[in-house]
């Protein structure tokens, strides 16, 4: 279809595109674009521009902005364009505004009206254009303006409109969940739409809804399973096939939804086993899309209630992925392994060599994915190897984002699994040294706390050993140039607190070092402040120990300097230091007790020491303080109770606040009032909520205090958190735990045979593996089956499994399923092209537009060449050769069998190429046309003419 290949723009625009295409540098390109902007600015504000001209200007604006320049001067014209009556012009206007404006732009308010009008249009194409704009432009505030109309469009006779309306509602949901929360039933209804496209689109909002609240959609499990089954059985129209797979994108979406619904729910999961198992068997693993589905199956299997057979199939697919030559599949394999490892931890062992190969692969993406996997399987036996590797990699990269991530992972693993204090300190030092400025300041605080508190054991000698080894290592590191600020803060603090504690180093040595730090990093006020305070501590300890204090000359000069500092903080610290030095031993002991960093400092939050003052003022006639809640008259007794309950049971985060009707009021109640109502009983609604969420827990109504807090946390996590196999509380269902363990054990036993064989195979096939690699493998995977699992993966029960038994499945699921089977049946005539879409629209076009179109064709100067296809067609018959090298290129590209990266892609592409008769002719036409316009594919980009699919 050569008609689309024509170029309807003016010569000017083509010249612009051409000159930009030939620009040799970014600077040249910028110059051209700036020039163009000037032209457009001038032209666009001229009076009485014909619509067609204006349309082109707008497209030129889009082009300018696409190249990264500011075209905001023309936004208003694009907005005006959306008001136009002609769809042709309107469409350009909508395209431009959706590309130009973000949802918070001021101009949007000018478009809302037009959108409202267009949503009511008789022409479904206008409605579609408006819905496209709705998805991009409508923000939280303007949702109510269009919502009723969009909802109405869900019943539009055209499936394209219904589909877009669904997607628009999905967008609204993402922006403001409350605005569409009452429309959930509409989504459910659209799931049964006659048109598979609409059904497929509905899965998007449903996926989001289910992510947030699984429980209210459990009744749809059966429906989703039956849809998936029918899709897999090719019951959808052929048009939805993609590379011989039946509607693969819909399958993937459904699998994602099933993964959510089946998570921790045995009953729901059992419904899914058959269909997922079928998919494992049916999927064509030679095509990319087949593998995409297989990968999604693995994700699903690892999320739902474990099933031995499915896990085995998943493991098979993973090993196929890992053994593949394609990096993409290896990457997916590593990712899938990371998912499955949570359920069957020993699966990694058989792939150890593949994993190590990926770790050493030059491809950064693959390497990072592998580190992610290692992070997931770290335990105390292999932590040293893994963290060392991570740190080496961290040092080698420049990407700050990833550096931060990997640094925080190192810290986390080190804190969790450190085999020794020595190692821990060394590791932290390395992390701080190389990524110090990137790690969260909290990590530094944690490290200081850890050094101060020790590892929690009562062994004082171990703690002091830890401290002195830290001090020693820090003194050594201080010699290095350019340390990160955060690290220096830690060093200063530790040196001040423990530098002289073990008597190994003299005070003058430590203070000398601290003064050096303050001098070397004189631009960093925080470090300086830490250093001065550390100096003060050292001197205080010296004085308290009745030793003679000699202020070093450099310390003296530092103090002098800071006494006159512009920073009040530094100044104050310097004055404090000066004052402390002048005090006697007894006074110093009081203000700076030795090793007191772990002592709690009591803070009187109620400000009770001011009570006397308050009473005095009231006696003098001052107004007593009225809390805000009382002032606004909102106080009622139930709030008292709720608040009281929070205070009594938890001082942490108030998770339950979200579930109460008037959450805003509570937080305003001052603690003073609460104290007076301490004995009011805990309110009913809390318990109802709890017992609903954890029906099997017996202790709910009787217990109080910490266990209650834990329970509630759990319920809330279930509701708001991501549903995974999170560690369940010990109070919930011990029976279920047993059964699950049973299942996993059985799974392990039944698949051991194949597994060991495979391990053996893979080892045998790679005999030439270097001993180094084997050693690495051994240290990474060696003890995996014997040693303890990582705590988080140990118990993988979520109480949801018991909870759902009593869910509301029976009521509507049957009828929904019944409804479903009918509509999902192929309705071929719906999608049939026999119905000529063009004709139904044509009469709506107004005659003026046609005139306009006439103008259009006549004025398009150079592009008129496009209208002489006959001459061009002759090229098709002449063999190549007369043309220069580019044509040769093109033709050779055509004669060669098309090579695609995707193995499955080749066959269909070939078919398509063959089915398109005028293929070479088209290309030649295009070529000749462009040449006439003066565009020559220079050596700069010889690919310009090559078929993308060729």
């Amino acid at each position, binding site marked *: 279809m050569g008609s689309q290949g024509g170029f309807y723009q003016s010569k000017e625009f*083509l010249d612009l595109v051409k000159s930009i295409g030939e620009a040799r540098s970014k600077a040249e390109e910028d110059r051209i674009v700036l020039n163009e902007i000037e032209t457009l600015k001038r032209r666009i504000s001229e009076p009485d521009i014909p619509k067609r001209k204006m349309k082109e200007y707008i497209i030129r604006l889009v082009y300018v902005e*696409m190249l990264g320049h500011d075209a905001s001067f023309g936004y208003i014209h694009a907005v005006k364009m959306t008001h136009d009556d002609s769809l042709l012009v309107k469409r350009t206007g909508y395209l431009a505004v959706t590309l130009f404006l973000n949802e918070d732009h001021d101009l949007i308010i000018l478009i809302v009206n037009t959108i409202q009008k267009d949503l009511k249009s008789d022409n479904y194409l206008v409605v579609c254009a408006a819905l496209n704009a709705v998805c991009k432009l409508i923000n939280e505030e303007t949702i109510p303006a269009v919502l009723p109309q969009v909802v109405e469009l869900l019943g539009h006779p055209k499936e394209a409109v219904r589909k877009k309306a669904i997607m628009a509602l999905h967008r609204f949901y993402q922006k403001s969940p409350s605005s569409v929360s009452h429309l959930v039933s509409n989504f459910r209804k659209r799931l049964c739409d006659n048109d598979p*496209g609409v059904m497929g689109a509905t899965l998007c909002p449903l996926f989001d809804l289910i992510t947030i609240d699984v429980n209210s959609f459990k009744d749809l499990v059966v429906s989703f399973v039956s849809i998936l089954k029918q899709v897999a059985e090719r019951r959808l129209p052929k048009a939805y096939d993609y590379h011989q797979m039946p509607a*693969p994108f819909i399958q993937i979406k459904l699998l994602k939804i099933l993964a959510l619904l089946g998570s921790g729910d045995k009953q729901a999961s059992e419904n899914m086993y058959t269909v997922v198992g079928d998919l494992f068997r049916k999927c064509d693993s030679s095509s990319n899309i087949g593998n995409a589905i297989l990968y999604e199956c693995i994700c699903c299997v690892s999320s739902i209630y474990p099933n031995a057979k499915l896990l085995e199939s998943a493991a098979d697919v993973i090993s196929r992925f890992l053994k593949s030559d394609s990096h*993409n599949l290896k990457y997916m394999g590593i990712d899938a392994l990371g998912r499955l490892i949570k359920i069957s931890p020993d699966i990694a062992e058989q792939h150890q060599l593949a994993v190590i190969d990926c770790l050493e692969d030059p491809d950064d993406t*693959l390497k990072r994915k592998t580190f992610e996997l290692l992070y997931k399987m770290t335990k105390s036996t292999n932590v040293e190897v893994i963290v060392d590797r991570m740190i080496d990699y961290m040092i080698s990269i420049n990407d700050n984002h990833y550096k931060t991530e990997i640094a925080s992972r190192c810290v986390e693993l080190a804190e969790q699994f450190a085999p020794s204090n020595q190692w821990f300190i060394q590791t932290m030092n390395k992390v701080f040294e190389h990524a110090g400025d990137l790690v969260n300041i909290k990590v530094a605080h944690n490290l200081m706390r850890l050094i101060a508190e020790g590892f929690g054991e009562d062994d004082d000698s171990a703690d002091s050993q830890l401290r002195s080894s830290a001090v020693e290592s820090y003194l050594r590191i201080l010699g290095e140039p350019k340390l990160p600020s955060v690290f220096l803060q830690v060093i200063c603090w530790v040196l001040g607190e423990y530098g002289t504690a073990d008597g190994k180093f003299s005070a003058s040595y430590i203070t000398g070092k601290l003064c050096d730090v303050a001098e070397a990093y004189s631009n960093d006020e925080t470090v300086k402040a830490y250093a001065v305070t550390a100096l003060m501590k050292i001197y205080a300890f010296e004085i308290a120990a009745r030793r003679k204090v000699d202020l070093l000359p450099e310390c003296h000069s530092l103090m002098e300097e800071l006494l006159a500092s512009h920073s009040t903080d530094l100044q104050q610290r310097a004055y404090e230091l000066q004052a402390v030095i002048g005090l006697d031993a007894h006074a110093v002991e009081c203000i700076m007790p030795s090793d007191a960093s772990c002592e709690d400092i009591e803070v009187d939050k109620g400000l009770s020491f001011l009570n006397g003052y308050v009473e005095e003022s009231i006696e003098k006639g001052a107004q007593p303080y009225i809390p805000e809640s009382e002032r606004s008259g909102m106080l009622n007794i139930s709030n008292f109770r709720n608040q009281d309950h929070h205070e009594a049971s938890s001082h942490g985060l108030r998770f339950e606040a979200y579930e109460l009707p008037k959450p805003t009021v509570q937080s305003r109640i001052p603690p003073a009032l609460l104290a007076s109502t301490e004995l009011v009983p805990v309110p009913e609604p809390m318990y109802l909520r709890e017992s609903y969420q954890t029906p099997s827990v017996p202790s709910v109504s009787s217990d109080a205090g910490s266990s209650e807090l834990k329970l509630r946390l759990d319920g809330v996590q279930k509701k708001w958190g991501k549903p995974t196999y999170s560690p369940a509380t010990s109070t919930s269902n011990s029976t279920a735990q047993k059964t699950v363990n049973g299942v996993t054990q059985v799974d392990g036993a039944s698949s051991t045979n194949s597994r060991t064989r495979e391990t053996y195979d893979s080892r045998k096939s790679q005999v030439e593996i270097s001993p180094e690699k084997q050693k690495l493998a051994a240290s990474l995977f060696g003890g995996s089956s014997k040693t303890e699992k990582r705590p988080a993966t140990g118990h993988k029960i979520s109480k949801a499994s018991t909870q759902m038994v009593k869910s509301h499945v029976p009521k509507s699921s049957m009828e929904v399923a019944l409804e479903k089977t009918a509509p999902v049946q192929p309705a071929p005539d719906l999608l049939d092209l026999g119905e000529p879409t063009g004709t139904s629209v044509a009469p709506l076009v107004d005659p003026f537009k046609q005139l306009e*179109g006439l103008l259009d064709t006549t004025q398009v100067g150079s592009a008129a060449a496009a209208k002489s296809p006959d001459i061009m067609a002759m090229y098709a018959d002449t063999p190549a050769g007369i043309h220069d090298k580019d044509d040769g290129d093109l033709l050779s590209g055509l004669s060669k069998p098309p090579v695609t990266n995707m193995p499955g892609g080749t066959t269909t592409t070939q078919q398509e190429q063959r089915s398109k008769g005028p293929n070479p002719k088209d290309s030649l036409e295009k070529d000749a046309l462009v040449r006439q316009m003066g565009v020559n594919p220079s050596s700069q980009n010889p690919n310009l003419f090559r078929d993308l699919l060729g």
Partner: protein
Amino acid sequence: MIHFVLLVSRQGKVRLTKWYSPYSQKERSKVIRELSGIILSRGPKLCNFVEWRGFKVVYKRYAGLYFCMCINQDDNELEILDIIHHYVEILDRYFGSVCELDLIFNFHKAYYILDELLIAGELQESSKRTVLRLVDAQDCIVEIAHQQASSVGNLIAQATK
């Protein structure tokens, strides 16, 4: 969810950008610069995925043109690869053996097609035929305006093939 779609030539020239998540003009330029730097320098045998700022960017090269899509951590990369391929196939069907030049001069059409394929960062239609039919329906009006009604029959005939 797809956060943005990016078409960049091997020379680093931008051919098409579509942003589904809000990015300021400044951020956009930075993103394009950063990503084209990363992607264009990658070897042919490596993964088609890049982890970037906590997101993943899936890219695929067709002739001299890179199609990139930025997605969330938990999205399926292989699926995105096929969405890209799906788009290219539709472009190919629409333009008739599409080449980079088509997209250079008719970038607005590439946008229209993309709008029928993806909406709000999600795949809205997975049937090639439906997408083409809608785009053609819109083009029909254009065609009529251009007094080229004769090609409408061709269009439909082509699409039904």
